[in-house]
């Protein structure tokens, strides 16, 4: 057992300063990204009803997303500074570009659909949005993993997959809310499959994290991840059992899954804050690694 020393129990790291807008954006960006793919895929297989609804849902999420991000900035009027450079070492910068392109494409496509004009341009916009959708749905996993926060960084293998599954589930669920059940079969499959995949990934992530992952069972993050599990499992069950026949079940199930996915993003957000707050999550793994493998961070002999 490694004895954990600290400076008066004070945190080694700073807690992320991000407020509610950021985890909400993780959700809305996921909906936007996965809806872009759903919309064009549905069209490809002749399901115009679903395609159109997914297009509108995605475009709406793409409009909300930058507003959330800008509102979280300390200097919102400088939001465009995000696009003054292109930096692959900054997942936030790459994400800003991806959101910019995906949002531009999907809102253009939705507007043209609404007006019923310029079909070739609309198709091109949908194709661009289809290509940028999956990165938009998954990059946020890299965004949080690329930090010093132990519960995020050590889960770097799982987080993009977890966020991708969550995005697929929420895009499917959102489509179930707005699409008549007769046309919503792919959306239901997506919602249910996404929830199942996400449950497995969450489990895999906690297995890898070990003690670092205990924040998912403590405090706010613990409550949120329980809520996420209950809401998304309940919603998925409702969609699977009644979503085909009853519109009411489809709407309620879709709303529940979306609420669960939103809770999941907030659970990850708060887990990060809790992980930064307690110095043991930073010191203990590093001390154990240093004792086991040696470290170049300290030199004892001249």
């Amino acid at each position: 057992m490694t004895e954990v020393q600290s400076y008066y129990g004070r945190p080694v790291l700073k807690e992320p300063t991000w407020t509610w807008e950021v985890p909400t954006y993780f959700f809305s960006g996921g909906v936007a990204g996965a809806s872009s793919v759903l919309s064009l895929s549905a069209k490809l297989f002749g399901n115009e009803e679903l395609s159109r609804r997914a297009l509108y849902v995605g475009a709406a999420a793409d409009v909300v997303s930058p507003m959330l991000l800008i509102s979280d900035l300390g200097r919102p009027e400088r939001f465009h500074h995000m696009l003054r450079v292109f930096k692959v070492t900054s997942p936030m910068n790459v994400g800003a570009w991806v959101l910019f392109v995906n949002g531009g494409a999907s809102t253009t496509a939705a507007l043209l659909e609404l007006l019923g004009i310029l079909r070739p341009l609309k198709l091109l916009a949908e194709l661009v949005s289809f290509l940028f959708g999956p990165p938009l749905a998954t990059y946020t996993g890299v965004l949080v993993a690329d930090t010093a926060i132990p519960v995020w960084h050590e889960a770097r293998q799982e987080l993009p997959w977890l966020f991708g599954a969550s995005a697929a589930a929420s895009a499917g669920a959102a489509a179930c809310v707005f699409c008549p059940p007769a046309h919503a079969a792919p959306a239901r499959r997506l919602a249910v499959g996404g929830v199942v995949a996400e449950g497995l990934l969450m489990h895999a992530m906690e297995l890898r994290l070990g003690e670092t992952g205990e924040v998912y069972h403590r405090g706010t993050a613990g409550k949120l991840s329980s809520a996420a599990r209950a809401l998304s499992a309940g919603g998925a069950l409702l969609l699977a059992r009644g979503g085909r026949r009853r519109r009411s079940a489809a709407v309620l199930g879709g709303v529940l899954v979306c609420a669960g996915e939103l809770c999941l993003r907030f659970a990850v957000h708060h887990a990060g804050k809790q992980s930064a707050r307690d110095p043991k999550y930073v010191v203990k793994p590093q001390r154990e690694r240093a004792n086991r493998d040696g470290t170049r961070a300290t030199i004892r002999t001249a």
Partner: protein
Amino acid sequence: MSTLLQQLPDGHESYGDERQPRVGFFTDTSVCIGCKACEVACKEWNLIPQDGQEWTGHSYDNTGELNANTWRHVAFIEQEKPLRTNGDGTTALRWLMESDVCKHCTHAACLDVCPTGALFRTEYGTVVVQEDICNGCGYCVPACPFGVLDKRKLPSADSLVKQEDGRVWKCTLCYDRLKSGHEPACAKACPTQSIQFGPLDELRARADERLAKLESEGWNGAQLYLRDPDDGIGGAGAFFLLLDEPEVYGLPPDPVVTTKHLGSMWRNMARAAVVVTIAIVGACARD
């Protein structure tokens, strides 16, 4: 280091003829007397706003931490440990003091993840935030393995008006003073040469000598922290001589720059993105 990091040009190299020798701090905590002149000089020179007075009860430390409004922080640790290992074994109270500061890492996570380019590598090899570019996204805050950066919120002037700066701030290694040939304010003010400023090569050589001396005198726990260019951050521009493990001073014992793993994170994300696409197309194909 990851291939991604190796392929990127070292920011310092990119200055060409304008490049200056890399400078930094060697903070020798064995001679620190805890006067906090560094904290005061830093606040004065850099016009840092006050951030309230709080009595912590943690020895003489009422500053607490490095943050947006504190770029030098003196830590105080009282412990029952012998000062020397070659003594008679009696344990007396030992009072450790350490003036902490931004490490100006060789591989700086804050600089890597900054989405606006507000954080940059200067011609002196230091890491500085451009206050006219920073939009307060806060990404550097959790990226720093030392918890140095933070967003600045000014205390309200009156209760009705919420004044907020909103940007992140940290030690600039007195970039403005360097440009006019002066040493940083904290080093200038330090009365015991606990804070030594100079070209990094010289400081490293001086630190090695100092460690050898303390070792020969049998000082308990003497160690150099972040002096080695092969550590997880590529060595620091501001490194330390400590008298106990780093975590005792609130420093991480084996920090690694998070972007070391960014290449594999991007590849992993690409795989996830492809699988999500296939899954969604597949869900539609069964219709």
